[in-house]
């Protein structure tokens, strides 16, 4: 498979890439190729377009090129500003997602639409919302209002920061990076990176850190927590993954994007007997909803809906010729989908006023009429079944795995090894014991996207396997999770990749060695887990033998995630360098300097085998420091 231009380790991807080629359809890989060579100034972050005196660029390769922008901004200023803006954009994407979930909760209206009252009450308790004498809907509404307040409140710090270990909270306060209102932090980055504002790269990164923290401990966490309240907290379940989950005889609907409000409604609508009957009348055997990217993760985690594929597979899903409708909302939706869909019968349906695509059908979704709109969309898909044009080709590649590992589900799994006469239940103690005793050496998160600069999925999968054999348990989200499940790493059988310690843990807990914790906003679940472990051990997150990696990252969201992880004390390996390499100072600050400030830092390493070795070394170093 190495010789394939699409450079993937996934068989379905390769087959469909070849089908696309033969049908002369350009996909991400072809466009990436056409883009070569990419601009070195941009790659290194040395290009600034922040005002109309620019664009300016700093020339590094020769002595006589400009060393400052027209305004005098240096390479340090320009690269850090670019980076900060990327982080702000990422934080904005996650946060806006979180806000939409809060709005959905606000409009939930009746009790049946709140599927997890227990969590509602739990968060209410945490936030000091009194529940006595109020009904569920009232509490939900109050919570939603409070959550919405987090985006723009005038005073105070973010609610969820309280979940962090005490030492971390203190450190943030001392450094002045504890975020206030989410939107405020994002705006502040945009302000201070405006021409003629902040020129001090350290200070610019400090602002970016506040914005990033307002994502991880704000927007993303609100998104996750309130999604659980609305749609239920994920619990372990089996799902199928990869493009082989499309069904030739069924109406195939791919939901793609991020917000579960839409995808959950589509899932519900697809089970409507009337629509099922309609599908049968059209000659289909049923309606097959499958998920892509993060919204795919959301409905897989909660409903067991098959995970059709990751970021790089979105065009290929359409290339099967079997997709009646691809329904998208926001984020990571390639505009090229419209072009690809045109070659088939597939209807590309955009639903968010925040993300329209020329050439797509736009059916605007709103939380208040969610089911009604979802029904209409599903009906459109059903009626499109008979319009299939080309010969359908669905690769027979799919794999199965156990997913649904929310923080709550992990605690529940851990309870399996507590002894009811000797231990408390409902705590992270067994995990802490496994780590302290050395049975598990540590834990690592593999998150992030796909990127043509890295062989598709290979980096996720290789890194995971390398960690497993070293008894480092892996948690994953986002497209990393798609890669891992496709490679069979969420199957029981994956124990064969594990060292004895991890294999034993998997057997005792009845879990796979790679735990799917959800979508990209669900990285907040990892923060919660880390916090609980740190608190249990009486240490800070930066003391834990843990690490994170985004081996194939591409989005601005990933940069925000990376930075809030670092700011939370985590060692983060990036498989693709961010566009800061034009400044040695900024690169050095992110990859070294930050550690003495925050306890976490970035590392740039594109080779997954090397990355695993570095993570293992970091984990052992932390163990030594802890004396375990």
């Amino acid at each position, binding site marked *: 498979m190495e010789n394939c231009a699409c450079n993937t380790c996934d068989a379905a991807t390769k087959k469909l890439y070849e089908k696309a080629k033969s049908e002369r359809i350009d996909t991400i890989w072809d466009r990436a190729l056409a883009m070569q060579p990419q601009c070195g100034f941009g790659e290194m972050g040395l290009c600034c377009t922040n005002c109309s005196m620019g664009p300016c660029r700093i020339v590094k390769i020769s002595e006589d090129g400009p060393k400052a922008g027209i305004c005098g901004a240096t390479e340090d200023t320009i690269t850090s500003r670019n980076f900060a803006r990327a982080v702000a954009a990422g934080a904005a994407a996650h946060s806006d997602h979180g806000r939409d979930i809060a709005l959905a909760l606000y409009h939930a209206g009746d009790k049946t639409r709140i599927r997890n009252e227990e969590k509602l009450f739990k968060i209410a308790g945490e936030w000091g919302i009194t529940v006595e004498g109020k009904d569920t809907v009232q509490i939900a509404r109050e919570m939603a209002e409070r959550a919405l307040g987090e985006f723009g409140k005038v005073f105070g710090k973010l609610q969820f920061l309280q979940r962090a270990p005490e030492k971390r909270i203190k450190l943030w306060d001392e450094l002045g990076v504890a975020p206030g209102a989410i939107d405020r932090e994002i705006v502040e980055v945009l302000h201070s990176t405006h021409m003629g504002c902040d020129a001090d790269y350290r200070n610019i990164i400090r602002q970016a850190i506040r914005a990033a923290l307002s994502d991880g401990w704000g927007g993303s966490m609100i998104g996750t927590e309130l999604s659980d309240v609305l749609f239920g907290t994920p619990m372990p379940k089996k799902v199928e993954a990869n493009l082989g989950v499309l069904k030739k005889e069924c109406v195939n609907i791919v939901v793609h994007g991020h917000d579960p409000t839409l995808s959950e409604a589509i899932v519900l609508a697809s089970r409507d007997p009337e629509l099922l009957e309609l599908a049968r009348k059209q000659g289909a055997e049923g309606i097959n909803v499958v998920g892509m990217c993060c919204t795919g993760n959301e409905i897989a985690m909660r409903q067991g809906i098959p995970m059709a594929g990751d970021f790089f597979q979105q065009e290929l899903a359409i290339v099967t010729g079997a997709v009646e409708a691809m329904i998208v909302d926001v984020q990571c939706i390639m505009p090229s989908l419209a072009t690809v869909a045109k070659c088939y019968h597939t209807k590309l349906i955009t639903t968010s006023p925040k993300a329209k695509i020329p050439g797509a059908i736009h059916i605007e979704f709103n939380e208040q009429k969610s089911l009604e709109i979802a029904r209409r969309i599903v009906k459109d898909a059903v009626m499109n079944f008979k319009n299939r044009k080309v010969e359908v080709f669905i690769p027979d590649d799919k794999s199965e795995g156990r997913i649904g590992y929310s923080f709550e589900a992990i605690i529940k799994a*851990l309870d399996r090894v507590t*002894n*009811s*006469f000797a231990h408390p239940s409902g705590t992270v103690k*067994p995990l802490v014991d496994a780590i302290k*005793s*050395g049975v598990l050496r540590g834990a690592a998160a593999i998150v992030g996207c796909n990127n043509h600069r890295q062989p598709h999925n290979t980096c996720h999968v290789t890194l995971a396997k390398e960690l497993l054999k070293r008894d480092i348990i892996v948690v994953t989200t986002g497209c990393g999770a798609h890669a891992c499940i496709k490679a069979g790493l969420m199957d029981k059988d994956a124990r064969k990749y594990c060292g004895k310690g991890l294999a034993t843990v998997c057997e005792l807990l009845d879990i796979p060695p790679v735990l799917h914790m959800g979508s990209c906003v669900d990285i907040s679940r990892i923060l919660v887990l880390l916090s609980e472990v740190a608190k249990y051990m009486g240490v800070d997150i930066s003391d834990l033998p843990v690490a994170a990696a985004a081996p194939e990252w591409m989005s601005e969201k990933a940069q925000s995630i990376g930075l809030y992880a670092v700011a939370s004390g985590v060692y983060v390996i990036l498989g693709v360098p961010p566009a800061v390499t034009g400044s040695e100072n900024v690169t050095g600050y992110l990859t070294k300097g930050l550690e003495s400030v925050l306890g976490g830092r970035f590392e740039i390493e594109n080779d997954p085998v090397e990355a695993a070795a570095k993570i293992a070394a970091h984990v052992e170093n932390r163990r030594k420091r802890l004396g375990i």
Partner: protein
Amino acid sequence: MTLFDIIFTGSRQALEAAKATVAAAVEKKGSDARVAFPETAYSLPTIYAATGKKIGSLGELRDALSIVESLIVPEQNLEKALNAGLATALSAEIIEACKYAVEEKPYSEPCAGFISDAVIRSLGVPLVTGDIPGVAVVLGEAPSAEEAAKIIKGYQNKGLLVFLVGKIIDQAIEGKVKMGLELRVIPLGYDVTSVIHVVTVAIRAALIFGAVPPGNLEELLKYTKERVPAFVNALGSLSGLVVSAGAGAIALGFPVITDQDVQEVPHYLIVQKDYDKIVPTSLEARGIKIKITEVPIPVGFAAAFEGERVRKED
């Protein structure tokens, strides 16, 4: 020291002790002297099951030391720690074998020492039927004879087979625990190494009833883990040697429950400081469910008493 380091150190100590014991035995009897446990067809059962090799002489026993050595690789992971635990078991067997090579009758009342094949065969059926729901290995020293008796009788009452190692034997006697094979309480010996005599019970069960081929360590460990419902209670202060022997038990799939402060290992190494809870903690840890409902009469009433003749005057 990390838990694994304690294990590695203990295993090294056991190996050194084994080396010294073998050297002394060779010194005394010569390397051709015969080595055998009484009434067994399985030579030195642990070494035989693990390697497929039968040991006949002290010279061969000396050669076996290198196998033990090779199992001690002080890398920080569970696999190596468990291997080191197995190494300790092998060292213990070597030391115990030397006792039998050097002395005519190394064990005497009340201690049983090596358990014969015949006894194991007789235990096979009740183990399979669940009439013996589990095997408790109690080693070390309880805080008092009273506590010791309470724990031992707790198991005896439920029909478990109990092996005693160390000072707990005297405590059991003091606590008026009725002992003997038919009462399912068997004192093995006072040295830690005599714990191997219960290990070989499990191992021979795998060879005899499980038809595990000698030399297939993986299958052996699978059998003991899945089929021999044993666990260990390590009471009183824990030396590195005991901890590494505990790792050996864990390698066989047997959880260790202790009253001491150690780093717990989920499921396998459990701290229970409340002596009244040691029995239920242990049974739960090994997943042992008692078939017979306990009858609350003053005399322990269970299968363990089946073999006891009730004398008229009682």
